[in-house]
């Protein structure tokens, strides 16, 4: 299994991110957090830029039969690393001041490298190892706020995650045992096509459940809002976007390309049910949330539902690219939204994490306000933002299909997008039209409350991490510009250009 010299560049992006992580750990041990966080940002930015370069310039091909590179997989890898770089940069104040900050930045870097590997993976064992590495990093990142609430959210995440890992490994065991001890996804797919179909369907049911959990799809969602509410906003932004992009990308390859052979019609039904449940549940519950983080958590369930509509549809190249565009657009927007929350937290240290508590920020901080507003528009799927082009492709594929249930769910998705403006729009109203925070949304002074209640307050992460909001504001602006760039590019270069960038290797 040797790699030709001209193929080294294909895996170099992942190597750069990992090198940033390792050097960051060493720098943290010897010199301090600022240098460590800077190295992590540099590694991620370099890896991300190289990933995009590879996606544009190299032909899609496999490296050592285990990783796909070039085309959509490299574009996804580059996108997750760039999102990671922006998230770490936006959390600069938090990461350089919190005692565990550099470690968290390194974990985000590892999450990015693992996600890029997962998106490119052609081997089922590698998929499992990457999913597990993502889960373990996620547990640690959630617990990193070091208070009772985040520890509680983290332990719930761990228990549910362990069950999902059990389902995943059991499904893998059946595929591995019954279909000739293979781990290569394409070979397993061929073996399923020529062998008995029942064990494969049982195994895929288990693996689909595990993926649904990793994606936070209904009914495997309950960890997501807790984690997004209690984790520090930069880490929450990274966790909400990066692993989700990678898991969707892996699901597209595993279920769309590799296992798309043979009779898998019942699998489409399973995806359809998951999608419908996620869209309905996520939207309805998000409507009544008062916490910004929980609202993003529940709306993330709905967003995953939109992506799963694509998996239920026939796996044309166009549909697969559309799913990747949709999930990358979601990742960029949700990272932008959480970085905006980090900036709000720095500007108003007394902020309790509620949507009402953000009142008036848009007028006092124009750049931050516009950044968060663009994220909300893209999450809704407003035309000329990145989110629109993803929804366009996915719902379009559902609407033109002959299967009436799929058409119905396409319509449901479009209606749900309209409904979703109910809660995304509430953020805009708070930013621009509501009066400044009243006393009820402001945290009580410590001392007047018991320490247990003070710890129960989501805004109370670590007082020493309050400081300048400039990095978080700048990162929000960068993310918002990227959303607009991805949204406007198809206007000039055509939609084919965007979907070609996210071409799925098959």
């Amino acid at each position: 299994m040797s790699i030709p010299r001209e193929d080294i560049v294909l895996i170099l992006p992942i190597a750069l991110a990992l090198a940033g992580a390792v050097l960051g750990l060493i720098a943290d041990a010897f010199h301090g957090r600022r240098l460590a966080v800077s190295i992590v940002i540099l590694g991620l930015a370099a890896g991300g830029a190289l990933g995009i370069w590879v996606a544009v310039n190299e032909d899609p091909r496999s490296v050592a039969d285990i990783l796909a590179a070039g085309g959509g997989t490299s574009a996804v890898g580059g996108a997750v690393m760039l999102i990671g770089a922006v998230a770490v940069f936006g959390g600069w104040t938090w990461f350089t001041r919190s005692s565990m900050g550099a470690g968290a930045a390194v974990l985000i870097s590892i999450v990015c490298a693992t996600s890029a590997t997962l998106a490119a993976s052609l081997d089922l064992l590698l998929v499992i190892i990457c999913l597990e590495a993502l889960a373990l990093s996620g547990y640690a990142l959630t617990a990193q706020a070091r208070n009772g609430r985040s520890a509680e959210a983290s332990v719930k995440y761990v228990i549910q995650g362990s069950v999902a890992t059990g389902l995943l490994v059991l499904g893998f065991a059946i595929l591995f045992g019954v279909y000739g001890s293979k781990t290569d996804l394409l070979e397993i797919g061929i073996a399923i096509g020529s062998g008995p179909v029942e064990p494969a369907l049982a195994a895929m049911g288990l693996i689909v459940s595990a993926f649904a959990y990793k994606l936070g799809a209904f009914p495997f969602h309950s960890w997501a809002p807790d984690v997004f509410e209690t984790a520090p906003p930069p880490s929450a932004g990274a966790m909400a976007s990066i692993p989700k992009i990678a898991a969707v990308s892996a699901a597209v390859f595993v279920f769309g390309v590799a296992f798309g052979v043979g009779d898998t019609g019942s699998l489409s039904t399973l995806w359809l049910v998951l999608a419908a449940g996620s869209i309905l549940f996520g939207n309805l519950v998000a409507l009544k949330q008062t916490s910004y983080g929980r609202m993003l958590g529940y709306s993330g369930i709905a967003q995953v539902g939109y992506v799963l509509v694509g998996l239920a549809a026939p796996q044309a190249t166009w549909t697969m690219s559309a799913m990747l565009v949709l999930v990358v657009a979601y990742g960029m927007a949700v990272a932008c939204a959480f970085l905006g929350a980090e900036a709000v937290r720095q500007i108003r240290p007394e902020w309790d994490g509620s949507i009402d508590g953000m009142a008036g920020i848009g007028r006092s901080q124009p750049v931050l306000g516009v950044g968060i507003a663009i994220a909300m528009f893209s999450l809704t799927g407003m035309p000329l933002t990145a989110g629109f082009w993803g929804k366009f492709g996915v719902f379009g594929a559902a609407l033109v299909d002959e299967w009436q249930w799929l058409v119905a769910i396409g319509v449901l998705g479009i209606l749900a997008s309209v409904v979703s403006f109910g809660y995304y729009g509430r953020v805009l109203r708070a930013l621009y039209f509501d009066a400044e925070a009243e006393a009820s949304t402001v945290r009580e002074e410590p001392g007047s409350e018991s320490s247990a209640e003070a710890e129960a307050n989501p805004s109370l992460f670590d007082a020493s991490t309050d400081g300048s909001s400039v990095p978080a504001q700048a990162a929000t602006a960068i993310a918002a510009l990227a959303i607009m760039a991805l949204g406007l590019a198809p206007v000039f270069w055509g939609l084919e250009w965007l979907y070609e960038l996210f071409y799925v290797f098959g």
Partner: protein
Amino acid sequence: MNVAILASVLFAVGLYGVLTRRDLIAVLASVEVMLGGASVMLVGLATTIESAAAPEAGVVEAVGLFIIILAAAEAAVALGIVMAVARRRRTTRVDDLTEVSG
């Protein structure tokens, strides 16, 4: 086929434990039983089912080891987080962890 039944029973016992036990340590122990069942399924099926193409020597053992390491890594991180909960909340009972919800 017997080995598949054994593995399924192990997995089911573990899942039952996760759903019914109220103590975090017991829940984690049940998770380990689940993962043990999955490993037995993997090695058992791969070594007993006759397939057209025989696997390369060592592949089954290597993959089995990977799964065991994965379970161990999971347990290490999970126990660390349970320690953090126990220290901050003075409890390891699942029923007491109801502060984050909505």
